[in-house]
C-alpha cells in the first residue's frame, strides 16, 4: 500500500499529539511541597545482581519500618507516630543503571517529587556521584550502605550529606585484628577480590593493617576477577597452589556465594580457610555447602552480629516473619538510616510540625541515636559519619536444625578501628594507627 506524504504527515502529527497527551496523563505530577506528609526518597537496587542480596532486603526493611512508624508501633524512643507526628510517605527508586542515571533520578526526586529527604545508595560510585548534588540541591541525604572511604574526602565540608553506616576501612582493620588474635601462627595470606574500587580498597586496607600487626606475613597470591564473573575455577586452582594460611575476600552477593560453592566443592577452604568481610548475607544460604570455620563479617554490628536490645527484638522477628528470611546487614543499615532521620527531625523540629531540611541536618550532625545495631554516634567527618564497632565470628552449621550461625565472635570498638577526624585511613594505618584504643 502506498502512503501519500500528507496523510503520513497527519498520521505523524496525530501520533505525536497522542504521545504528548498520554505522557502528560501518566507522568508523575509534580507534587505540592507540603501535603502534610513527610516524603522520603528511598534508593536501593531493585534489579540487577545487587538486588537479591542487598537492595530488596533493604527495601523490605524500609517498608516494614515506615509502616510501623506510621502506626506508632516501634519501641521507645521511636514510639511517636511518623516523623515528628507527620505521616511518612515513601518514593522508592531502583538504584540500577549507573551513576549518571542516579544523578538524574536524584534531581527528579528532589525537584519533581519534592521529597523532604533521601535515604539510599549501596554502590560507592553512586554515593560519590550523588553527594555533591545533594549539597547543591540542599537536600538532606543519608547514605545508608556504600563503603567508600572517599565519600567525605570528595565532599570536604558536608552540610547535607550523611552516612549512618560504616565505611569499608573499619571492616578490614577489624578483620586484620581478628585474624592476628585468633590465628597467631598465621604466616601467609592470599587474596581474591572483585576487580574494582571496593575490592582493591578492601585488600589494601587489610594487608596494610595486617603487615603492621604482623610484619613477617607473606602475600602468596592475589586474584582479581571481574565483578559478576561467576566462574572462579582458575582462581581457585591458583589459590590452591599458593597454599596460603588464610584467604581474604571482600566478595559480596552472588559472586561470594559462587566462590564459596566452587571453592568448598574443591576442598580449597579445608586447606586455606577464608575470611569474608561481607559473609553475613550468605549465612542463611550456606548450610552445609561451606566448611565450618569460615570467618564471617557483616560490615559492622549488623545482621547476625546485631546485639539484643528492644529495637532489635522488634525488628528481627518482624522482618523474619514478614519476608521469610533473616534480616541481613543491608536491612539493618536501612532501618538505621530511617531512625536517624526521625531522631534528627524530632530533636530540632517544632512539636508536631513538618520538619524542614535545616531541622534534619542540624539534628543529625553529631547526633547519638539508638538502632537495632545498638547506639550510633555521628562522630566522624565533622558529625556526618557514623561511628560504631565491628564484629567478626566463625561460621558454624548445625545439621540438626539445618541452620548456620557464628561462633567465636569478637567485637572491636570504633576507637580501635577508626582514624581520628581529618586523617585518611591509609595515612593512619601507615603511621601505626596512633591513638587506637583497643582492649
Amino acid at each position: 500500500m502506498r502512503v501519500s506524504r500528507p496523510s503520513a504527515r497527519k498520521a505523524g502529527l496525530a501520533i505525536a499529539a497522542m504521545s504528548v497527551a498520554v505522557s502528560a496523563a501518566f507522568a508523575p505530577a509534580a507534587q505540592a511541597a507540603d501535603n502534610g506528609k513527610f516524603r522520603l526518597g528511598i534508593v536501593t537496587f531493585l534489579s540487577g545482581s545487587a538486588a537479591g542480596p542487598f537492595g530488596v532486603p533493604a527495601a523490605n526493611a524500609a517498608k516494614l519500618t515506615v509502616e510501623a512508624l506510621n502506626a506508632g508501633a516501634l519501641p521507645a524512643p521511636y514510639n511517636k507516630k511518623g516523623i515528628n507526628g507527620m505521616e511518612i510517605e515513601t518514593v522508592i527508586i531502583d538504584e540500577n543503571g549507573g551513576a549518571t542515571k542516579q544523578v538524574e533520578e536524584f534531581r527528579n526526586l528532589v525537584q519533581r517529587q519534592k521529597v523532604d529527604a533521601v535515604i539510599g545508595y549501596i554502590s560507592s560510585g553512586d554515593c560519590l556521584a550523588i553527594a555533591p548534588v545533594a549539597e547543591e540541591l540542599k537536600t538532606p541525604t543519608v547514605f545508608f550502605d556504600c563503603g567508600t572511604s572517599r565519600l567525605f574526602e570528595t565532599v570536604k565540608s558536608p552540610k547535607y550529606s550523611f552516612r549512618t553506616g560504616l565505611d569499608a576501612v573499619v571492616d578490614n582493620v577489624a578483620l586484620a585484628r581478628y585474624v592476628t588474635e585468633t590465628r597467631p601462627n598465621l604466616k601467609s595470606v592470599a587474596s581474591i577480590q572483585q576487580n574494582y574500587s571496593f575490592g582493591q580498597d578492601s585488600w589494601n586496607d587489610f594487608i596494610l593493617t595486617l603487615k603492621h600487626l604482623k610484619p613477617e606475613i607473606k602475600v602468596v597470591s592475589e586474584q582479581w576477577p571481574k565483578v559478576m564473573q561467576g566462574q572462579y575455577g582458575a582462581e581457585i586452582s591458583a589459590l590452591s597452589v599458593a597454599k596460603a594460611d588464610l584467604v581474604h575476600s571482600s566478595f559480596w552477593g552472588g559472586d561470594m556465594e559462587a566462590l564459596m560453592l566452587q571453592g568448598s566443592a574443591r576442598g580449597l577452604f579445608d586447606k586455606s580457610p577464608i575470611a569474608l568481610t561481607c559473609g553475613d548475607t550468605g549465612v542463611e544460604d550456606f548450610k552445609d555447602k561451606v566448611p565450618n570455620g569460615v570467618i564471617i563479617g557483616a560490615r559492622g554490628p549488623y545482621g547476625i552480629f546485631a546485639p539484643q536490645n528492644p529495637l532489635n527484638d522488634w525488628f528481627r522477628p518482624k522482618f523474619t516473619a514478614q519476608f521469610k528470611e533473616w534480616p541481613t546487614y543491608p536491612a539493618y543499615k536501612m532501618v538505621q538510616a530511617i531512625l536517624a532521620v526521625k531522631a534528627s527531625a524530632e530533636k530540632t523540629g517544632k512539636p508536631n510540625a513538618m520538619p524542614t531540611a535545616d531541622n534534619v541536618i542540624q539534628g543529625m550532625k553529631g547526633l547519638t541515636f539508638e538502632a537495632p545495631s545498638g547506639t550510633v554516634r555521628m562522630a566522624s567527618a565533622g558529625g556526618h559519619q557514623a561511628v560504631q564497632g565491628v564484629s567478626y565470628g566463625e561460621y558454624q552449621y548445625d545439621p540438626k536444625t539445618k541452620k548456620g550461625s557464628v561462633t567465636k565472635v569478637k567485637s572491636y570498638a570504633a576507637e580501635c578501628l577508626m582514624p581520628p577526624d581529618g586523617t585518611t585511613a591509609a595515612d593512619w594505618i601507615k603511621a601505626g594507627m596512633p591513638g587506637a584504643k583497643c582492649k
Partner: protein
Amino acid sequence: MNTLFAILIDGMIYASWLFLVAAGLTVIYGVMRILNMAHGSFYAIGAYSAASLVGWYFNGDGDSSPYWSYALLLGCALVAGLVVGLVVEQGLLRFMRGRDETLMVIVTYALLLILEDATKLLWGVDPYFAYQPYRLLGQSAVGDALSFANYDLALVVVSILVGLAAWYALNRTNKGRLLRAVIHDREVAMAMGVNVNVMFAVTFVIGSMLGALAGALTAPAISVTPGIGIEVIVLAFAVVVVGGLGSIGGAAAGALLVGLTRSFAVHLAPEIELFVIYGVMFLVLAVRPQGMFGQILARKI
C-alpha cells in the same frame, strides 16, 4: 609442574564452558545470519529453570536417587529452550526474516531486555541454588595441593560431545547437508524445494536449546542471580568473533584459545586477567578480521 597442570586443566574447563555458551549463538548466526543478543536470556532461562527444578527435587522428601538430578538438569534445559525458542521464532523472528543484520541485532537486543524483565517477573531477584549436582560427583585430587570438581571435568566431556554432535549433524546427515545448502545460498536452496522457513525455525530452536543447556549445566556451580545472561553474552560474542562467526570449529578453537590464555593470565599475571580476553580478540582480529575460521564471502551481484 602443579601450576602448568592447573593452567591446562583450568583452561580446558573454562574453554568447555565458553564453547557450550557460544555454540548456540554460532549455529544461529551460521544459518540465519542473526547475531542473537537474546542468547544470554536463553542461558539465564536455562539456569533459572534448572536451579528451581533441582532445588524442588532436593527439597522434596522422596527417596529417589540424587543422580536423577542430572536428568532433570538436561530435561528442563531442553524443554525450556524448546518452548522459548519456538515462541520467539514463531512469534517474532518469523516476521523479521530477510531484514538487515544490523536491525536484527537491535531486535534481539530488545528481546534480551524484555526477557530479562520476564525472568525477574517469574523468578524474582533472590538468588537460586542448585549446588547438589555439583558436589555429587566428588573431586579428583592432583598432588597434595590441587583438586578439581569432577562435575567440571564432566563438562569438558559434555562440550566435546556437543561439538561432535553438531559437526556430525551438519556434515554427515541429509538434513545437515540441506542446512548447509541453505547457508551457502538461501535463494537457490528455496528454488530447489528446500523449506527454508522450517529450516530456520528448527535451527533457532536448536540454538536456543543449546543456550538453555549451557545455563542449566552452569547453574549448579553458581548462584543464579539476575544479570547472568547479560554478563555471558559479551563473552560468547568474544569467542565467536575470535573463532569466526558461524563456524562450530571456530567457536571451539576460539573458546580454547580464550580459555587457555585466560588461565595463563590467572596463574602467572592475575592483574591482567580482565584485559586478556579482549587482548586475544584484538590480536586475532588484527591479523584475521574474519576470525580464525571465518570465511570471506563473495558479494552477490
